[in-house]
């Protein structure tokens, strides 16, 4: 599984999405745009991303992590290779 898939899996599981939710749906997710991604889920999501990729997410990044796309940017910043 590549890193993008691992990230999608983290989102699917933490936000309680259907395991077969299409990638395109996951990729378009935004904080608070769906009921499952509320502030409490956000806390779990940040922790799950840290665990999965063994990184530390700082204050600014917690506040910036407002979409799946932002999470990809964050992983890139931490040197996790997500592209192709």
């Amino acid at each position: 599984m590549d890193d993008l898939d691992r990230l999608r899996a983290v989102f699917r599981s933490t936000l309680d999405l259907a395991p077969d939710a299409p990638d395109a749906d996951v990729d378009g997710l935004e904080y608070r745009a769906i009921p499952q991604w509320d502030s409490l889920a956000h806390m779990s999501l940040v922790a799950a991303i840290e665990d999965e990729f063994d990184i530390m997410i700082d204050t600014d990044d917690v506040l910036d992590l407002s979409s799946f796309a932002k999470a990809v940017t964050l992983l890139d910043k931490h040197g996790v290779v997500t592209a192709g």
Partner: protein
Amino acid sequence: MTALPHPSARLVDGPTGTELAGPRLVGEIAAAAERLTAQPPGLMLTTMPTRTQAVIRYLAALASGRPVALLDPGLPADFLLDLVARFTPAVVAGPPAALAPPYGYRADGDSWVCPGAPQPHHQLAVLLTTSGSTGNPKLVRLSRSAVFTNARTVARALRLAPGDLWPTTLPLHYTYGLTTLNCHLAAGAGVLVTEHGLLDRPFWSLTESFGATVLATVPYHFEMLRRLRFDPSAHPKLRMITQAGGRLRGELVTEFGRRMSEAGGGLVKMYGMTEAPRISMLPAERLADKPTSVGPAISGGALSIDNGEVVYRGPNVMMGYAEHAADLMRGDDLGGMVRTGDLGHLDDEGFLYIDGRLRRIGKVFGVRVNLDDLEWLLPGHGPVAAVAGDDRVVVWVEEAGAAARREVAKELGARLGLHWSGFDVRAVDRLPLLGTGKVDYRTLEERT
């Protein structure tokens, strides 16, 4: 008589950054009150989103003497219709646009109205639901004098002044959120009305640019503040964090109390319930000394312990519950006394310590959950037992594997409209039983 709002009170509308104060605020409330007066007299049922217009509508109801029931804006449509059927409000403000008015109601602007609805008791001012969306919520009936006295007393105890500003960190249909709104407005202070929460960047930019001085929190907010590596010294205007809504873990009390006091502010622990909005308050200067207490009774109130149960007497106690429209006509059923359902003790200074719960009630992220009801929501999972944890509910399930535990948490989260991480599901070989064959909750609590 307390003015609510006080002439110097202000509302800051988060989305636009506009400040409504003085004659402009008074004018907005008067205009909304006038619109309300044109509608049939009687109870108004309204959702209470954290928006300026909803706050104005609530203040207009208070100003025009119309009792108002404030509901969770996330309430499913069938719950709203059930409440309408049970309580026959004269006005339902802002119902979901897609919903047709039920029998007996007609649309009137953005409301449903019912001419000839029963007239509630003249002292009735505010009604709140006892629990989020579990079962058939009862309404708590608060008199006008209870609401106003409560606002004034809390404002004084927190030494709120016109320079204070609270950004809405709590839902306003929730007793602690509503009390915090009321006490700021009664003190002539400001309320920054924003739907953004602690994890949204706009919350912090608004907080900074308008100079918030008070943060009102429930226990899970501290996990968020910790996660954000919140540093009080980075917010020089912030002078106070209030905490209620359940027991805050000791280490968090110590940590945040110390950090707030180092930054020249304080952490104020409070205890209250929908039935008596604020009961006790631990002043910041006593926190280091009595970190596990929730403080003495607020001014005008009195605490006692009856067979281990905390009993509160005070002018802000509810008139009673309402389950049906007929109950809205009732006067004061309680005479200013409420049994809290919490077990506790008082020390020689009259400071209260909460030791546990008499009734089977737990809290998940500050929301009350009936633990017996919760067990009934889990048929098909074998024997289960729910006990209260720290702002979580611990659910013991016999012989549950990891997948089953996760399933239970998600099922409860979905049924109760709460995030699944609020349910700590644990496996047990066999639930411990008492001689009577009933589940031995005490043993489970000790293991929790």
